């Protein structure tokens, strides 16, 4: 029993959890034919069958029930504000399954040359709103009200001690839906994590319909014809959004250290985290000359790398690896798309640089509040 808990604690380490997710992710949601081949060979397509729904839901429930026996797990999962996030895990899994299983079914129907499940024969297949829709709405409404009433009677809303501006609680967390942002704050300066990246997320979401110029799959669930866009969206939504929230909620403890789900939240856990800037790496560690006084000279390497990443990489990719995509999207769409994608990728890149080299900033000009 303890051995199992320990195993889970180890697996939940962000380095392992995130790496595992990254490696396996595109085999589950294949973005291209090559991945799709392996997706089917590895039998991941079975995930969207009825059997897996039952098995995985069962396993999730079993895990929570088993976990509740553990005092550390219990105290974190049953914290009132965390309850919705446990719910979120189940809901996200269920609805991912629901959409993917319908998508796969439709893909098969299309392959067999039949109309998709949502196909309808206008105007014969129309139904009347009264009563066919209003009664569905009425039932949802009543069930939803009953659900909130029960939830509210059963679980008191949290209220902590009165505000005290001189004593931060430990850990101090943002509201749960912003914990993904708070996780980014560990790796980025606030102007990036708090302002630029969120704005890019909002703008990027708004841009989706204008960037995705594939007319296929409008108005019904499907996967086969929209592989790349669905895979990218799923990565953003399941990994960079939901997973980061789950990590921030359940695995971040006192002093913002990582704790496994069964680990005691010890506020004196010591973690050596001496972070180094790129300039210090180059001038102090490798060249041994000490930091130059001139800011531009000091940060020139970081600036070159960053400019290269944002200015040279996109055209390079357009000529080589992403040639087909470039042809399909055109200059304007491609440029916006690739800038959004490589901006999003800075997050995992900086995560790994931090974990492997304790690298803090690539460009660090605190004199002008500019750190990247």
């Amino acid at each position, binding site marked *: 029993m303890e051995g199992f808990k320990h195993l889970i604690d180890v697996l939940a380490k962000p380095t392992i959890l995130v790496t595992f997710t990254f490696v396996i992710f595109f085999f589950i949601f294949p973005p291209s034919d090559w991945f799709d081949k392996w997706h089917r060979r590895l039998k991941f397509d079975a995930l969207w069958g009825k059997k897996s729904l039952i098995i995985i839901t069962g396993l999730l429930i079993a895990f929570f029930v088993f976990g509740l026996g553990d005092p550390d797990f219990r105290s974190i999962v049953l914290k009132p*504000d965390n309850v919705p996030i446990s*719910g*979120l895990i189940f*809901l996200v899994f269920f*609805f991912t399954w629901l*959409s993917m299983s319908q*998508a796969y079914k439709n893909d098969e129907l299309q392959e067999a040359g039949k109309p*998709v499940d*949502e196909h309808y024969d*206008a*105007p014969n*297949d*129309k*139904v*009347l*709103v*009264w009563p*066919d*829709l209003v009664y*569905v*709405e009425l039932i*949802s*409404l009543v069930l*939803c*009200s009953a659900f*909130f009433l029960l939830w*509210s009677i059963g679980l008191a*809303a949290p*209220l*902590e*001690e*009165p*505000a005290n*501006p001189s*004593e931060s609680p430990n850990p101090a967390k*943002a*509201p749960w*839906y*912003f914990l993904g942002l708070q996780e980014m704050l560990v790796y980025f*300066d*606030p*102007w990036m*994590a*708090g*302002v*630029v990246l969120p704005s890019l997320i909002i703008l990027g*979401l*708004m841009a*989706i*319909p204008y960037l*995705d110029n594939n007319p*296929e799959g*409008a*108005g*019904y*669930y*499907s996967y086969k014809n*929209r592989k790349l866009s669905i895979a990218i*969206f799923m990565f953003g939504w399941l990994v960079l959004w939901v997973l980061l929230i789950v990590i921030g909620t359940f695995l971040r403890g006192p002093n913002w250290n990582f704790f496994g789900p069964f680990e005691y939240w010890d506020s004196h856990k010591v973690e050596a985290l001496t972070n180094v800037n790129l300039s210090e790496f180059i001038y102090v560690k490798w060249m041994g000359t000490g930091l130059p006084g001139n800011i531009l000279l000091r940060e020139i390497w970081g600036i070159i790398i960053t400019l290269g990443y944002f200015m040279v990489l996109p055209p390079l990719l357009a000529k080589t690896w992403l040639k087909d995509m470039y042809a399909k999207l055109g200059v304007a769409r491609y440029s916006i798309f690739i800038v959004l994608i490589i901006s999003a990728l800075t997050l995992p890149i900086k995560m790994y640089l931090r974990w492997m080299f304790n690298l803090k900033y690539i460009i660090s000009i605190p004199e002008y*509040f500019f750190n990247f």
Partner: protein
Amino acid sequence: MAEKKNLLQRLAEGQIWTSIFRGGGVPKSRRQRMMVVLNSVFLHLHPVRLPKHAVKLKFTWCMGGLSFFIFLILTISGILLMFYYRPTIEYAYTDIIDLAEQVPFGIMREIHRWGAHAMVITVWLHMFRVFMTGSYKPPREFNWAIGVVLLLLTLLLSFTGYLLPWDQLAIWAIAVGSNMARATPFLGHEGPGAALLAIGDINFVTVASDVRFALIGGRFLGEATLLRFYVLHCIGLPFVIMIFMAVHFWRIRKDGGISTPV
């Protein structure tokens, strides 16, 4: 009296009932049923007829509808909370306690808080559904963009409400959140580029003139912050989100109703 009518039928054919619900009688014929929808300002939000998959739960998951319904629950419970809650540092915290302990049926705050959490989740899942059915594709691009604004507004509503209990959870979440504004490029006094907006020694973007100041109404979290967030939470943002919802619903109809395969 040739035929004996029961009470319900008599009521449904009486003057009062028919004056309210035009058409009269229990809607049985196809025409009558269509008229029910057409004659009601509320039901008129819907079209009269729908493709059959659109009423299936497995297609829409009813998530947009639930988001709207939860928004209504939040509006009602929020108005009720406003009868007791006073947005001052002196009273805010104790009023929250009183809401649970001194007020009959003291679960209004619970309904409001859990509702807020649930709305965030339903809006996310709604977005997910719309993506998976490809319903953002032409002609619905603009409505998707409106949807993203709705998502943002939902989060902002949640965030401004989080401060109001004025407990430890509240002020530290807001402290961290509002300090991000401090780092806004050019507009925050610790943001990159802010130092460029200066003439000689005079800085224009300072701790007392940046976006963070506008948000929290001072250099530190305090009375002014609570009041600003209160006004935004109870009036400003709900007003804006209602306008966007109206456009969202209008556009669903104008874009040809719920999306269908072509």
